[in-house]
């Protein structure tokens, strides 16, 4: 019953159909026009229904040998796999293979009949979402329909004969614009950038005030088991740039990277060991490989310069203890204690503790020492929000739920407790931007601004549901030094 409802909620789907090698690559958007109450127990009736209710929104055929009608097999196939619990990003029907991703309620599907590079296809599909989103703000049914001419133009420019081409939306916006009339005025020509070695930045950019903003954002992923032991923890950091610089500036970023310090022979101050680093297209990878210098010509505006991963065992900073007692047929009692164990002068903002509750729970009652608790029945959880959580403090939340006397015999999953928060002016790893050198041939002075933020990524604390079960959970958050600017 529930399953069917969920499906009826999602009103439309988009199929984007991209096919590599000797097959067409086309984009197809499907959409449900009306929903008839199809009998969910009758597979045939349902499949029939789907065929009628979905249609291709848009499609682009890049090669000629996969029949366009093949996409009709996709949705029934998807439904079938979903029902069997064997959902898979690659589905095949005969010798046609569907690789798909889902974006909100649209499906983007690439089809092929060759041994295509699957990772390339998925990267491309996500790139597609990114480009469309930057063009139309939202990628949804209406934006595709209202802009189908631009969509076709983009699809042609993004990929040719199954080979992805120019996918940088900023550069694309220079010669494919939403207002067709604009084009004629500019008497459109290809920006040289498209084929340049520097394909991400156009020449002739001008700013009155030359500035670059650097955001260092770290998110921590911690997995804690029911006994309170950290199973795994890592830090995923990213350095984002907002570049407002004129001309073609050469930038060099200095971090307190331990490998670099070891190479240059300096070893004072705190350093950070980055397990793995990933760079934006613009960074000279071979240069980094040889002497760890991060040098690049930045794309204009916002971009993610690099991301890194740090594998460290972190010292506990916030401690969460929870006691959940479930008395069958009558009630559930929940007690959660959160303790901030980071420095007193730091403050965690927008802390959200999400505690799962049984799906058949009712009549919630809460008591909190700070913040507010809310029952979110559609997600089967209690969300406890604390706007500002200073270090060293300890808060408590109690919840009480009623349970129906007739037990729900459906098995339920064991979702973990999750914690979300944000701590500004602070990085867990202690990574620092030591300098940002900006050199442009016109010789202007430019100011770099740096900002540090720590977020929780996927912090998961596993729970166990027994009839009556008390246990303690510990939530760890690592400690970092304050960072001077």
């Amino acid at each position, binding site marked *: 019953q529930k399953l069917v409802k969920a499906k009826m909620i999602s009103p439309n789907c988009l199929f984007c159909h991209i096919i590599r090698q000797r097959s067409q690559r086309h984009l197809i958007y499907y959409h449900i026009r009306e929903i008839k109450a199809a009998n969910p127990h009758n597979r045939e009736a349902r499949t029939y229904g789907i065929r009628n209710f979905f249609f291709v929104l848009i499609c682009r*055929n890049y090669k000629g040998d996969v029949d366009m009608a093949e996409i009709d097999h996709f949705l029934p196939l998807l439904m079938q796999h979903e029902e069997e619990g064997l959902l898979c990003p690659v589905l095949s029907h005969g010798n046609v293979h569907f690789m798909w991703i889902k974006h909100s309620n649209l499906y983007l599907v690439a089809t092929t009949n*060759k041994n295509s590079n699957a990772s*390339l296809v*998925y990267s491309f599909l996500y790139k597609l979402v990114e480009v469309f989103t930057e063009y139309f703000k939202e990628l949804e049914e209406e934006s595709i329909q209202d802009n189908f*001419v631009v969509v076709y133009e983009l699809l*042609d420019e993004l990929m040719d*004969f199954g080979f992805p081409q120019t*996918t940088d939306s900023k550069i694309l916006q220079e010669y494919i614009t939403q207002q067709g009339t604009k084009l004629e005025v500019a008497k459109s020509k290809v920006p040289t950038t498209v084929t340049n070695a520097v394909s991400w930045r156009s020449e002739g950019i001008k700013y009155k005030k030359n500035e670059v903003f650097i955001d260092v954002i770290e998110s921590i992923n911690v997995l804690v088991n029911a006994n309170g032991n950290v199973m795994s923890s890592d830090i995923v950091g990213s350095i984002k740039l907002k570049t407002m610089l004129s001309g073609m500036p050469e930038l060099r970023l200095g971090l307190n990277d331990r490998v670099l310090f070891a190479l240059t022979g300096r070893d004072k101050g705190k350093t950070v060991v980055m397990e793995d680093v990933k760079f934006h297209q613009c960074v000279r990878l071979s240069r*980094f490989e040889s002497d760890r210098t991060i040098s690049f010509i930045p794309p204009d505006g916002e971009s993610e310069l690099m991301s890194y991963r740090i594998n460290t065992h972190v010292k506990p900073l916030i401690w969460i203890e929870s006691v959940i007692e479930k008395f069958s047929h009558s009630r559930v009692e929940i007690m959660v204690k959160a303790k901030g164990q980071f420095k007193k002068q730091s403050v965690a903002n927008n802390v959200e503790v999400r505690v799962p509750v049984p799906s058949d729970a009712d009549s919630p009652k809460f008591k909190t020492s700070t913040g507010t608790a809310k029952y979110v029945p559609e997600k089967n959880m209690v969300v406890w929000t604390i706007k500002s959580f200073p270090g060293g403090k300890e808060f408590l939340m109690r919840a009480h739920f009623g349970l129906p006397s007739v037990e729900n015999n459906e098995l339920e999953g064991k979702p973990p407790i999750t914690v979300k928060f944000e701590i500004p002016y602070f990085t867990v790893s202690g990574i620092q931007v030591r300098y940002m050198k900006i050199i442009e041939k016109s010789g202007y002075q430019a100011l770099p601004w740096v900002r540090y933020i720590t977020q929780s990524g996927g912090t998961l604390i596993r729970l166990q549901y027994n009839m009556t079960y008390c246990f303690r959970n510990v939530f760890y958050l690592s400690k970092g030094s304050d960072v001077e600017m």
Partner: protein
Amino acid sequence: MMCDFLFSLVCTGEIFELKAELNSDKKEKKKEAVKKVIASMTVGKDVSALFPDVVNCMQTDNLELKKLVYLYLMNYAKSQPDMAIMAVNTFVKDCEDPNPLIRALAVRTMGCIRVDKITEYLCEPLRKCLKDEDPYVRKTAAVCVAKLHDINAQLVEDQGFLDTLKDLISDSNPMVVANAVAALSEIAESHPNSNLLDLNPQTINKLLTALNECTEWGQIFILDCLANYTPRDDRESQSICERVTPRLSHANSAVVLSAVKVLMKFMEMLPKDLDYYGTLLKKLAPPLVTLLSAEPELQYVALRNINLIVQRRPEILKHEMKVFFVKYNDPIYVKLEKLDIMIRLASQANIAQVLAELKEYATEVDVDFVRKAVRAIGRCAIKVEQSAERCVSTLLDLIQTKVNYVVQEAIVVIKDIFRKYPNKYESVIATLCENLDSLDEPEARAAMIWIVGEYAERIDNADELLESFLEGFHDESTQVQLQLLTAIVKLFLKKPTETQELVQQVLSLATQDSDNPDLRDRGYIYWRLLSTDPVAAKEVVLAEKPLISEETDLIEPTLLEELICHIGTLASVYHKPPSAFVEGSRGVQHKRLPGSAGSGESVESPDTGSAAGVSEAPPAVIPSQGDLLGDLLNLDLTPPTTTGPPPPASSGMQMGAMDLLGGGLDSLMGTGFGAPPAAMPASFNVPVSGGLDDLFDLGGGVGMPMGVFNPPKTVWLPAMKAKGLEISGTFVRRAGVIQMEMTLTNKAMSVMTDFAIQFNRNSFGLAPAGPLQVLTPLSPNQSIEAALPLSTVGPVMKMEPLNNLQVAVKNNIDVFYFSCQYPISMLFAEDGKMERQVFLATWKDIPNDNESQFQIKDCHLNSDAASNKLQGSNIFTIAKRTVEGQDMLYQSMKLTNGIWVLAELRVQAGNPNYTVSTCATVSALDGLCLAYKFCMTNPEP
């Protein structure tokens, strides 16, 4: 609403309205009309009737309108080929437009119009665009060559576009290079034997330079192309690796995976003791781990590939167990893959952690995931002996949960644990028996029945338990029926007095009331065994079972090697070779890791040292030969004649035998023949398999007109060098199929299983056409005949001598290498008879350099007999003349790779020495002399 407007178009009246609007004088109105046409095309409505009207709008200076019309053309040109010609002029004109955007647009669209008739008109504009001053046009034109090739390959070759495309690899613009590489790779894929890409150190260097400058997608094209190159030696391999490793830091996961592919492949060539080898191994782990924080679909692709990488080089990720722990919100496909990798990485060092995790997973709600987790616990027990006890107790805990599918899954794996560690955990049987009633899946029922039968002597009420299953015998699945039959026979042999009735009941159920031949046959075998010789029955049915191996689901090594070459692609996601799911790729050669034999032997096996000598010898040593050989091997553009040889009959027979005796009794075969190895002389064993072979011989011999000379078997691999495995063999050609016939003899003390074979690249592209069919375990002192059909479409490399073949044979003990030489005459094709006229012309055309002469001594045949005899070996006599008492025979033969060899045989009456002059279309082939001698002097069949 847009959508309503689209659907309003469905009425046919609309078409006429549109027609009018399209022919309107007002530009704006025209454009709106074309937009409407495209809109209805988008929703799948047929607007092809408007073709001429839309094409009329083509000549416009409005770029947007032009794009729309082009879009329309691409869609409908195929259905209106005659009208599409109308568009040609505009294309030609647009290709000269001052605006590069329009030139590129025209050349891009041109290639998408898949109409044969108009393609030839497009060659000139394309040629111009390939040399365009603007890189944007050139990069588009490069792709257009691939498009055109897809429509009309011949035309592209005739027009010399391929050469222009090759020149573009040296273009100054990185994006042009990338697209040229992509286009060439695409074209090369449909021509597996051509050297289109012609990768040599110079081009490789160019590609590596472009790699630093082109877009992320271009980097993927170049890396994928690099992966097809085979470096000359380990130094070159290392220097390429060094220049590829920076790509591991790219933000795009696809770039990273393609770089991993190149590195995994070239790593094969690096000696293991090299420092750099260790460095490279260390560098590979972090990027692979980072791929797990990508989007779920990319994670899935990465995990499927990590699964392969872990099997090939477990050392890379052995310390990274924790990153594969399952997260609650992972999609199910990611969860299942992570679980798989966790088991592969499980070792004594991390088993405690893994078990704790698995136990956690086993209490989730997702049925498939839970099942797999339970199964994983069993696999850990089998893999890590020290953990077995803990695993068993974990499984017992899970059985206590009474969750139906958990219990069933646990029982299936406990059966395997019993087999791995006999006489250790049988105390849990009582607990298992408690759950007998809840088992409803065939696999679990069969496992339980097996346990009851196997340990019948310890279970007091075993007969009752089995009897209860027997009630619904005919409703059970085959698996359960077979298992029940065997279990009851076991029970009977252990407790004969009380169970006579039961065994009779099951035997009659199996033999009289069942339609299943497997079941019937097994029933009869038991019946006869029991009635004639109960002692023998005991030996057969209750024989020692071979231990089960640790890793049951490893990918077969040859396939694994091929899949490593396809990292990142669909093949690596499916874990299937591309030929298994791509149509029309059967002729495409299977990719192999480079020099896996070559690099192996430098460290491990010195006896194939000669192989390394050849593969590493720079081609400069024999320059002329090398060039000629290059031509020689590329001559063959026609499909090879012997692509799909039928599987040998003997293998079918063996398969049947396996099915019959497989399942619960998989050891029967082994025990039947080899149980008392000392007592039975080895020669006694041979006829059994020999008989099968004889049978096969008969079948193969029917179609043969005359006896082909088959050289006798020689010992290729002495037992001393191969830990007790002796291989002797020979090559034969039967009905157009080259076969490698081998006798494998086990001279060691232990049973050999899991045979597989692989060839190094060789001069004529010989490769196994199927797996080595040794399906039964080879017991000590047993010999087995194996016939391996060969194909000639494998990878090609010149060997010294030409007919040298390096072979690697694997079994459960180790991998062994040996080399052998096949007679060139095996390669003479059946269609080697040349037309007289052609023969004459060819004979004249062949330069003298290609001629060689030799004598065959002591041959007492007259010319006719010799001619007959040679014909049996596919050396055909075209003409004969007699000059001054000398018989001159003119003969032709054709090698499997399409090379013709012409010969003149001079026979002087009374003189036992023959003189043969041969000339081949390319170069003198050594080994021909030998071939002649073989064929002439062979004994009468």
